[in-house]
């Protein structure tokens, strides 16, 4: 016990400076991680409330809880908040910010001031979107399809659009920072193929952020121009093509899915290795599959437009490319599964989330094969099938990964452990609630229930009731970590520097880490996940 108390008293990034100024003007990547966690948790709760209201409205086939107009605003805000204010920054800006310098043995990211600026830019954009809600919200859906968004909608499209535009720049700043950091600040000996797979996936994510986000920015700018100056860039009356907007939008928004899920894949690689106490099977394949996803992810956006008026030949091209991008995802799933084989598997909370991720991501990915198949997509696109599919990827995938990562590294971030049994229960509740919410939606979609419907034919009600029941359970599952992790922040038992006995530079420094991470720059001599080579340090037989 005495040694643990001493660890807690060691000066760390949380205690070294005090006061609100030291937080708001910090350039410490670890503190910026916490600023981001606070911000995105707030937005997640907000988006979650919108989701619950949507589900409650859909409990009955008629519009009785809210009006159709309000319903449309609810799903639009749910999408906008969850995509741009939660999922896009979720893992990169929080865990990525915290861990990239620690994993590569650096004192900070390459541009610490830019890092802080990105948080402020994010907050300004986020607050602008909140201001849009306060002024009545937006009803275009998160997709902003023209000409509805430019001519027909009477809601706060311009304000919200500017907000997202600004948030986009925060994402670009983060991406630039990470790319440069991973290139330039690796400690001696930390070669590319010694890096933890989390870094490979974040590097790929950053590439996507840097190259996709500007196209969204310009597409939104065109919409804003069109609304503010009443000029028709996409307006069919002048000969403009609304489908062109969809091209530009999906050039960003399809790769954006990989911004959301690639970091989670990185987290899962770390967790699966740590809790199997074994190197990730086929390291090189898993590493390059991240890069492949990032690159191929840019070639498939047209599969969102198979029935949108895109040409048949273009649809054929995008369909075959979509199947190509599914291959590296499959490789990852196979390799994670193979990692468990003959491992030393321990089902702690992070591992439960990781295994949950693999299961849900497999279902999400496989239903992706359905929507990439041209013939089937004609029927299921714009229905609840697609809703279920992308929630399996973004919630079942990205959010499970985020929660898993949060639990895995919480002892490092806060220096304290959370209540393990409560956490395991929460993980199971999330898994069950999630499946109950979204699996019925596959059936709904196959039956033909279109998305964004405030009212629907009564014969589909029973599936909606299941889904709403699941959403309620899911909400409980999400509230629990919020409460016990907050509790653990001050009251949890001290964690020690390496509670999981995992490899990686971040586990070799004290928890919480000192302000400058490493007193002397470490020299890396081990590959990632080299349990055999580090068995003395880790106390393994």
């Amino acid at each position, binding site marked *: 016990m005495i040694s643990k108390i001493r660890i807690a008293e060691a000066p760390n990034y949380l205690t070294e400076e005090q006061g609100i100024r030291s937080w708001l003007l910090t350039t410490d990547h670890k503190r910026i991680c916490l600023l981001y966690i606070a911000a995105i948790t707030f937005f997640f709760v907000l988006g979650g409330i919108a989701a619950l209201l949507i589900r409650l409205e859909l409990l009955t086939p008629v519009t009785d809880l809210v009006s159709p107009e309000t319903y449309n605003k609810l799903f639009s805000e749910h999408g906008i908040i969850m995509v741009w204010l939660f999922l896009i920054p979720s893992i990169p800006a929080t865990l990525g910010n915290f861990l990239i310098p620690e994993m590569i043995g650096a004192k900070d990211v390459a541009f610490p001031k830019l890092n802080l600026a990105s948080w402020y830019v994010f907050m300004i954009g986020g607050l602008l979107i909140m201001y849009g809600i306060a002024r009545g919200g937006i009803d275009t859906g998160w997709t902003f399809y023209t000409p509805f968004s430019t001519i027909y909608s009477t809601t706060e499209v311009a304000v919200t659009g500017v907000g997202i535009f600004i948030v986009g720049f925060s994402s670009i700043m983060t991406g630039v920072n990470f790319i440069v950091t991973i290139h330039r600040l690796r400690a001696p000996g930390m070669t590319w193929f010694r890096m933890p797979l989390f870094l490979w996936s974040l590097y790929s994510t950053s590439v996507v952020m840097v190259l996709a986000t500007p196209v969204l920015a310009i597409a939104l700018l065109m919409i804003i121009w069109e609304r503010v100056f009443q000029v028709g860039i996409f307006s069919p009356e002048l000969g403009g093509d*609304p489908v062109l907007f969809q091209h530009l939008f999906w050039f960003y928004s399809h790769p954006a899915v990989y911004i959301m899920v690639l970091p989670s894949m990185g987290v899962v690689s770390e967790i699966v290795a740590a809790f199997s106490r074994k190197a990730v099977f086929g390291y090189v394949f898993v590493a390059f599959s991240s890069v492949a996803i990032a690159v191929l992810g840019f070639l498939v956006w047209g599969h969102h437009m198979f029935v949108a008026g895109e040409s048949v030949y273009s649809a054929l091209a995008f369909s075959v490319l979509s199947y190509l991008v599914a291959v590296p995802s499959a490789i990852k799933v196979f390799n994670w599964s193979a990692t*468990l084989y003959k491992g030393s598997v321990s089902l702690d909370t992070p591992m439960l989330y990781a295994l949950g991720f693999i299961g849900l991501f497999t279902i999400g990915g496989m239903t992706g*094969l359905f929507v990439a198949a041209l013939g089937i997509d004609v*029927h299921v696109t714009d229905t609840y099938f697609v809703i279920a599919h992308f929630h399996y990827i973004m919630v079942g995938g990205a959010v499970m990964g985020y929660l898993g990562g949060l639990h895995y590294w919480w002892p490092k971030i806060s220096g304290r452990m959370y209540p393990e049994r409560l956490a395991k229960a929460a993980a199971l509740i999330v898994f069950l609630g999630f499946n109950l919410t979204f699996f019925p939606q596959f059936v709904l979609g196959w039956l033909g229930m279109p*998305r964004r419907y405030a009212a629907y034919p009564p*014969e589909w009600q029973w599936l909606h009731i299941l889904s709403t029941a699941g959403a309620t359970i899911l909400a409980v599952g999400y509230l629990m970590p919020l409460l016990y992790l907050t509790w653990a922040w001050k009251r949890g038992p001290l964690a020690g520097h390496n509670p999981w006995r995992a490899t990686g530079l971040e586990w070799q420094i004290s928890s919480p880490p000192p302000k400058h991470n490493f007193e002397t720059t470490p020299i890396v001599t081990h590959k990632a996940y080299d349990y055999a080579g580090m068995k003395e340090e880790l106390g393994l037989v």
Partner: protein
Amino acid sequence: MNSLDVLPATASTYANELNSFFWVMVALCGVVAIAIAVFIVHCAVKYRRRDPDELPDQIQGSNTLEWSWTSVTAIIFLGMFGWGAKTYFDAEQPPPDTLNVWVVGKQWMWKVEHSNGIREIDTLHVPVDRSVRLTMISEDVIHDFFVPAFRVKQDVLPQRYVTLWFKATKPGKYHLLCAEYCGAKHSGMIGWVYAMESHDYQRWVQESGAEGSLASTGEKWFHQFGCANCHRFSGHGPGPDLRGLYGTSVTLDTGVTRIADEAYIRDCIVGNKGGAVFGFKGIMPNFTGQVSEEQLIALVAYIKSIGRQFGTELDSEPGTTLESQGVHSGIVTPGITSNAGSKPGVR
């Protein structure tokens, strides 16, 4: 109505074809997903950590295994693509002999016009065992015409015709839904498709009592808007003779060849995409804002009816002026203002 149905009605030829594809996919993916799940659970139980200090054998990977599951996966995926592509490519192309129906979407209703002049709102009556081709356009935002029982769906765009076709196989009453978000009452933009036995359909047509075919309405507009002043059937007007235009291939100023389909004819009247392209630049007035979508449909149907005869029965009611004239293929380019490269060509 079975309230616990988990399967949608299957009532078209395409729906039948798609069902088999879908269930094969479900079976294939289901087997793989279950296999992965079983493997994971098996490993989690069999190789559970028995001693906190345990260090398992370090297996790094296997290139043979990696390359084999990569290539097998890729091949299976390409197979899926092939099957999906084939169903889609076939399904996108209507057969030549179709019953033609026009659909106009607007916030928030579906307006249907049959070639024989019958109009409907939010309902569509079709005969079974007959290919039906819908030519659709929106008056405002993007809508989407979706009939789950037929497994067909197509975004309906403003200022541009799009096509969708199906062949109903089972009489019944099926949902017609708007699947592209279109504003406040998006979920109210729904209706019914009635697939009827042939004789029931015929009776419905007679009871509906249309005033005249769409093409004859179009002919009326053709004169009313002054189209006939330039597009004379003598071939000597300032505009080209439109007889036989439909279905031919025209070469535009830009060198692009385009089939003179419904979309092209519409573009020539109101759009800028087709209007100035085939050598009559500056002559044809732009009718944007002067002609409603319904009038346009009638005009296009009329010009189509004086086009080459594709053996369509129900909508081939040519204008009275046509019968004695014979039908040309292609456009006769008049001397004035003709540009190079505007020669009509036939594929």
